[in-house]
């Protein structure tokens, strides 16, 4: 059997959705602790799309987005990426720094804001990874994240290329965080390396 998202059944998607759910729950709790505020989250949606539609994920290929990517090693090797629209990223920073209402005021990010975003990416990715680790019993270690701001198409080409090695679709998990009247939507891309697919699916009990 050649493993690719194109021929995986719904069970795998359900499992990933569940990981997304637990991960986002952990992430929301982690964020709430840092900010000392109540953070809600919507039920994450696991989605599979074809390459040609990938840029529509975030409102067009040329939409400025923030990508926070970190590589993972241990029993699994691969990458995890958190992507959000520039406007949403501003919102997130304002929620974090307690300046709601000024969202969208300035286009550029300060060093401080970028650093905050990187830390948020770290926390969110860490939460997902620890859910995945708990669920599968696999050891997964995240590395230091890297951040990039550019067109959605360009940022998303990074996970797309990795998925492209095995198929023609990309899987991602859409997550929404809500704090009072401010909400932030971000997309998670879990990108296991080809050899890690089987390990992951076996650990999840999807294949034997």
């Amino acid at each position, binding site marked *: 059997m050649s493993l690719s998202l194109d021929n995986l059944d719904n069970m795998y998607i359900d499992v990933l959705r569940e990981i997304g759910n637990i991960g986002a729950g952990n992430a929301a709790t982690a964020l709430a602790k840092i900010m000392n505020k109540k953070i809600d989250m919507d039920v994450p949606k696991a989605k599979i799309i074809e*390459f040609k539609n990938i840029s529509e994920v975030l409102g067009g290929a040329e939409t400025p987005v923030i990508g926070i990517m970190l590589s993972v090693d241990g029993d699994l090797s691969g990458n995890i990426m958190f992507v959000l629209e520039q406007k949403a990223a501003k919102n997130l920073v304002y929620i974090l720094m307690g300046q709601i209402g000024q969202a969208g005021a300035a286009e550029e990010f300060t060093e401080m804001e970028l650093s905050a975003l990187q830390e948020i990416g770290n926390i969110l990715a860490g939460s997902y990874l620890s859910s995945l680790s708990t669920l599968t019993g696999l050891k997964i270690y995240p590395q230091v994240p890297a951040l990039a701001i550019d067109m*959605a198409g360009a940022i998303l080409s990074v996970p797309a290329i990795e998925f492209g090695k095995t*198929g023609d679709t990309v899987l991602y998990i859409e997550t929404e965080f809500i704090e009072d009247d401010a909400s932030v939507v971000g997309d998670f891309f879990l990108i296991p390396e080809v050899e890690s697919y089987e390990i992951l699916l076996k650990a999840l009990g999807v294949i034997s």
Partner: protein
Amino acid sequence: MENVVKVGMADLNVTRDPGVLITLGLGSCVGISLYDSVKRIIGMAHIMLPSSEQAKNNQNRAKFADTAVDTLLDNMIKLGADRKRITAKLAGGAQMFSFSSSSDIIRVGERNILASRAKLISLNIPIIAEDVGGNYGRTIEFYSCDGRLVIKTIGHGVSQI
């Protein structure tokens, strides 16, 4: 009216004059643009990976540098282009994230550039201009009237090759 045709990720297209081929938000992928200056026929491929030979699933010919160039050439010749006149321009192949490690995922842009060049050279298609590498995304527009390739970026200006 110019005929504006979009080229998606892992996609390719050709068009006659007057036409424009556009691909939005190239990152580590490479945009290969081919031109017959006499017939003014243009073709563009948005490739994601260097080689179809290493891939388990290689049915989508536009996804790989090697097979995309072959298909693009065939399609242009079908429209009436003369293979001997065809020239190439390359754009893209950026490294979007910088890590201390140099894993495969990081170097894929560079490998896409090298594979695209190698394929074109093997077919004796001259590469007359390039805007490749860097750490930023590019939107490219290829015009049939004069074969110019316009490159737009966020924060790195607009240029033309």
